[in-house]
């Protein structure tokens, strides 16, 4: 495991003029509904604890109103928490002065927004250079850097256009380039691709994953789309009514959904494509063909079916044998009921 970059501890957010005074009742179990009905305060976040590892993509998933956008805005303090602690590189965000906070936002974090939030009166090049400009970077350097990032998101030739002249997908590429241009180690993406249509969304995901291979940023990615979460997330935290109800890597969440809500969430996914061989691996070894541990179930089934005794060995990315997989287990994992009944066995 890589080291923790960002740690969120016991974070609460209660919206309303007297939020602080309701912390104790909420800690004692007052429900969101009760707080709203009796006191007209909204419970935004309820005891969030999350360690976000360095250089990975942490997805925070939830439906609208679950508090995910509120949560991401706590990381750069666009929203002040009611109680709790947030540390980045062991530095306490919440005790920062306005000046320190500004410096933190300039150097450590950058953000991509759902509705792009580009400056409509500035050109693409000026938008991308915005973060550098306000840091007082020399114009020539800012221009050079922004040019590089415009190129890396595939927008060369559009430098002098205005945002309104671009399509949604192109605008969000500008948003991404603007966020990358400041070289901040933490990238906050608030439903960054949700406003785009499906094909362009996939495009943008590819661009992000491709860039991440070189950049190794700590990315916090908010989405309400499970496919997107499974596709890009190294880790996923699922949020509901301001509470984290499950966190783990995508395989863990699919194989062992924490409750009915999450089971419901994942019931429509294509399990054959998403589940990887390593999730259904058993101890031991087999003489059959070697399968890569991240091979999908779908691909594995074809191979297993052709094997004589329907068994394959599993190897890690260095080619070392780490276990075996059987056709029965693979078929079982395709069907949720069976998978959950047998989950102890496959753990």
């Amino acid at each position, binding site marked *: 495991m890589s080291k923790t970059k960002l740690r969120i501890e016991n974070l609460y957010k209660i919206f309303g003029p007297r939020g602080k005074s309701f912390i104790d009742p909420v800690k004692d179990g007052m429900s969101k509904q009760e707080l709203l009905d009796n006191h007209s305060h909204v419970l935004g976040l309820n005891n969030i604890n999350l360690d976000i590892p360095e250089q990975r993509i942490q997805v925070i998933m939830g439906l609208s109103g679950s508090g995910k956008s509120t949560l991401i805005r706590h990381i*750069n303090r*666009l929203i002040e928490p009611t109680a709790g602690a947030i540390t980045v590189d062991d530095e306490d965000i919440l005790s920062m002065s306005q000046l320190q906070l*500004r*410096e*933190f*936002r*300039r*150097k450590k*974090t*950058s*953000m991509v*927004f759902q*509705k792009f*939030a*580009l*400056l*409509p*009166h500035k050109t693409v090049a000026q938008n991308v250079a*915005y*973060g550098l*400009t*306000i*840091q007082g970077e020399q114009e020539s350097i800012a221009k050079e850097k922004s040019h590089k990032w415009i190129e890396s998101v595939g927008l060369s030739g559009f430098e002098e256009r*205005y*945002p*309104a*002249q*671009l*399509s949604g997908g192109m605008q969000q590429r500008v948003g991404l380039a*603007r966020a990358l241009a*400041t070289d901040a180690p933490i990238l*906050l993406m608030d439903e960054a691709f949700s406003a785009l249509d499906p094909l362009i969304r996939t495009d943008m995901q590819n661009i992000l994953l491709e860039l991440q291979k070189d950049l190794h940023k700590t990315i916090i990615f908010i989405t309400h789309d499970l496919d997107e979460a499974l596709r890009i997330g190294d880790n996923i935290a699922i949020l509901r009514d301001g509470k984290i109800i499950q966190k783990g890597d995508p395989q863990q969440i699919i194989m062992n959904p924490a409750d009915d809500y999450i089971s419901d969430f994942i019931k429509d996914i294509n399990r054959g494509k998403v589940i990887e061989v390593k999730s259904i691996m058993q101890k031991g070894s087999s003489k059959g063909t070697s399968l890569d541990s991240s091979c999908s179930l779908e691909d594995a089934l074809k191979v297993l079916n052709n094997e004589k005794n329907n068994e394959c060995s599993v190897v890690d990315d260095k080619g070392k044998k780490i276990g075996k997989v059987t056709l029965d287990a693979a078929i079982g994992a395709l069907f949720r009921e069976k998978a959950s009944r047998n989950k102890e066995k496959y753990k």
Partner: protein
Amino acid sequence: MDWLAEFPSLGKRDLRDLKKGIDGSFREWSRSNGDAIEAFFDPLYFFLVWLEKLLIATPWPIILIIVAGLAYLGSRSWKLALGSVVSFMLIGYFGMWKDMMATISLISVSTLICIAVGIPIGILMSRYDRVQSAITPILDLMQTIPIFVYLLPVVMLLGIGRVPGLIAVCVYAIPPIIRLTNLGIRLVDKEILEAADAFGSSYRQKLFSVQIPLALPNIFAGVNQTIMMALAMVVIASMIGVKGLGMPVLQAVQNQYLTLGLMNGLAIVALAIIFDRVSQRYGQRLQAHRYGKEHE
């Protein structure tokens, strides 16, 4: 049952004493401080006179060229530039050139003052809700109080002439620019402001690189309104001795000179239309980037 039929009021004598007392003390205050206040406004007076003299002394063809140039630069429309020049020529041809120059200098100076004072006030209002709630009723008062009511103390303080006229015009014309600056800044998209914050902008950076540029169309609508209201004050300002196109209108009203009134009135209308169209077009061009040109 007498007390029911008559509204309980201050006695006639008390009331008279009260009014007399306030009048007397204000008169006294203005007598002792009038010179100082006049001295304070002296630079304004000199600027106004200087501009008026400059406009009158400048050969008329040059003025026409400047008018055409400004109209074209503002609106990017040849028609409007040509129309402005023709109107100016007609106004001059009917013997109103000097009066027109006096009016233009008054309008220019009062608009400049309104912008210089109004925009900072509007910015303050947009930043602090308290300032907004303190200033809004003052603006309401300025816009609804009968003009003659505040004309009186101004005249008592500064006498009759250009400067009191200018102040009266500014009091009447400044509210729209303040209101629209405040409104324009408050209407700037919250998400864009959030983005500016997220990248670590200071208040100043946010104000000058995001809020004001995005509020410009609204601010400019305020400038346009201010110019229009200043023009509307031209006749009333002439009552306290401001020269210009308003003076003949006033004479016409007093002496039933139908043609004189009509000619000068139409000249004011022509100026108003030119100022309005040019400044509006300019304001529209400021927000061209919002809609973008079509995708290519």
